Structure formats: C-alpha cells, structure tokens
C-alpha cells in the first residue's frame, strides 16, 4: 500500500520549499518511515535542526520541532535531551550546518555519546545560500566561491564521527531510498549518539555547476559510487577507488551520557 506519510506531516505544509529534484524530500520520507517503525511517540520526540535547506525539515513534521541557529542544532538538542532524557531526540541538517559551523557541537555530541540520532543530509554544498562550497564538497568541484575548482580537502563525515567517539555511524544515499529508513531506525534504536549520513543532491546549486545535466545524472552517480560494506569487504582497493561505503560503518557500546549523569545525581544524593 501507499505509505501514509500524511499522518506525520503537519496539515497544509506541503508542498515543501525544496527545489525540484532536491534529495532532502527523499530523506525526509525515510526519516518518517524510520520514526514510524521505531514507534516513536510524537509527543515525546524532538526534531532539532540548524539553518539551511536541509534544516527546514522539522517544520514539516508533526512532532516537537526546533529550528535553531546555523550550526547549533546538536547543542540545542543536547540541552533538550539532558533536561528531559525520556524524550527521543533527532537532529537533522545539512553537511554545511553540521560539519562547517557546527563541527564543534558535532564532535562533542559524538564524544559525550548522548542518546540522540544525528542525520546529516550531505549534498556537498551550501544550498540555501546559493552554492558556496562546504567542507564536504569534493576537491576540484565548482561552487560559487570555487570557480577555479575547490582547493579544499573533503571531510569524511563517518571518519570524523568515529574519531570523535560516535558509537554508531552509518551511511546511505538518497538514491538507495529503501535503505534510508532502515539505517535511521537502527540509529534511533542505538543507545548513544548515532550519526547517519545520507548522500544527497542539490541540483540547483551543485548539479548545474558541476556538469550534471539534471538531477537524474546526480542520482545515477549516487547509485554508481555506493558500495555496501559487506560487498566492499570482497573488493580490491582498485575496485573501491572512487566508491563510497554504505550501510552501518561502525557500532560499539559505550556508556550513554544521560545515564552517566543519572549516576552523578545518585552520587550527589548519596553523599
């Protein structure tokens, strides 16, 4: 049956503001399915974002939604979760929001291992401001501030998250739509900070500058470069050249932050 997205979307909010072909809508659908499959109580779920096209997502969801300042979503979310650990907290946002200006809050959320799900919609560009390069823009690519080709190296968000201590890291693509909800759901169920990166597309500000004739080409590229971790294990480095691993890239167990703090309270009250 057709999936019932409407029940999770605030009445009258569609059509959304995203451009034709923008992958953010695909990711939003995955998020809705994931929230449904985890049976999250919408009264007790907060979806928090920063600023950017991707960060407009929460406005559509019929739950507690918090659209904050550029880059600060993880820190706002940390306040929500610390103050009310019984809430489910999901952070959503773009690669710019999360890894440029928001980099510090991102790595510290990973370090604390606070029980939140951080969904990065990585379209490799600052879409909302018209296509300046982000820390996730491929080296050499064109953006409005790199007309001669981007000199900047690119963050591997998963590697960064693991380096900072994230205990669950997964990656999917907007093309592999059926996988998105599964990865997010696994992240939601994980106790601790879960990072889910979805490789996404921005036909408006990235595609055209980088010789993608249309969003279709961008989707095809996502299809081509993605290699599931299991498959990758059987491939040679040459075969993996230019590919990107998808699936659950990292999972470990470490004490969760609000539980650790509950122990602080116990110690304080025991003393």
């Amino acid at each position, binding site marked *: *049956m057709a999936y019932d997205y409407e029940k999770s979307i605030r009445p009258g909010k*569609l059509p*959304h503001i995203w451009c034709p*072909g923008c992958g953010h*809508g695909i990711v939003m659908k995955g998020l809705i399915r994931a929230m449904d499959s985890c049976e999250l109580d919408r009264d007790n779920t907060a979806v928090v974002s920063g600023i950017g096209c991707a960060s407009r997502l929460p406005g559509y969801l019929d739950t507690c939604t918090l659209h904050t300042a550029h880059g600060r979503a993880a820190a706002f979310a940390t306040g929500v979760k610390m103050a009310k650990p019984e809430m489910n907290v999901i952070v959503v946002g773009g690669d710019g929001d999360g890894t440029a200006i928001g980099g510090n809050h991102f790595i510290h959320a990973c370090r604390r291992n606070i029980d939140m799900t951080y969904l990065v919609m990585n379209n490799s560009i600052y879409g909302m401001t018209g296509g300046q390069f982000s820390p996730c823009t491929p080296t050499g690519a064109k953006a409005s501030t790199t007309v001669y080709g981007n000199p900047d190296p690119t963050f591997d968000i998963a590697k960064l998250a693991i380096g900072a201590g994230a205990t669950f890291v997964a990656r999917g693509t907007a093309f592999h739509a059926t996988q998105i909800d599964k990865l997010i759901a696994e992240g939601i169920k994980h106790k601790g900070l879960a990072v889910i990166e979805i490789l996404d597309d921005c036909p408006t500000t990235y595609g055209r500058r980088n010789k993608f004739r249309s*969003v279709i080409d961008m989707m095809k590229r996502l299809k081509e470069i993605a290699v599931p971790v299991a498959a990758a294990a059987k491939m040679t480095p040459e075969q993996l050249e230019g590919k990107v691993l998808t699936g659950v890239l990292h999972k470990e167990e470490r004490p969760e932050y609000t539980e650790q703090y509950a122990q602080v309270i116990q110690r304080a009250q025991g003393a």
Partner: protein
Amino acid sequence: MSGAKAEIEIIERYCKGCSICVEFCPTKVLAMDAFVVKVENADACIGCMQCELRCPDFAIKVHKL
C-alpha cells in the same frame, strides 16, 4: 484486461516535475507532461513502489491492486 499490479495516484499540486520517478520506473509507466508527471502506461506498473519511494515531493502514491 489490465496487467497493472498497482494504481498510481499523482498529487499534481505537489509535483515539481523533477522526473526522478519517470527515470527510475523500471517499466516506464510514467512520463512528463510539461511540468508535471503523468501516468502514460498504467498497465505496465508492477507495483515496485520505486516512484513513490524516490519522489522527493510526496506527489506519488502507489496503491497496490
């Protein structure tokens, strides 16, 4: 007799004409009509849901028959 496994509902008001659904429909059920998608070959639908899943704009619903 129709071979369709599913009926496609298009919410025209939501469709932004990106043509993702058209491209990735394995049986070429859909086509662009100026700025909005339309069902061109309803019978061919195998109900795989790819169009609904990938439509960024909540503009397609696949109702299995």
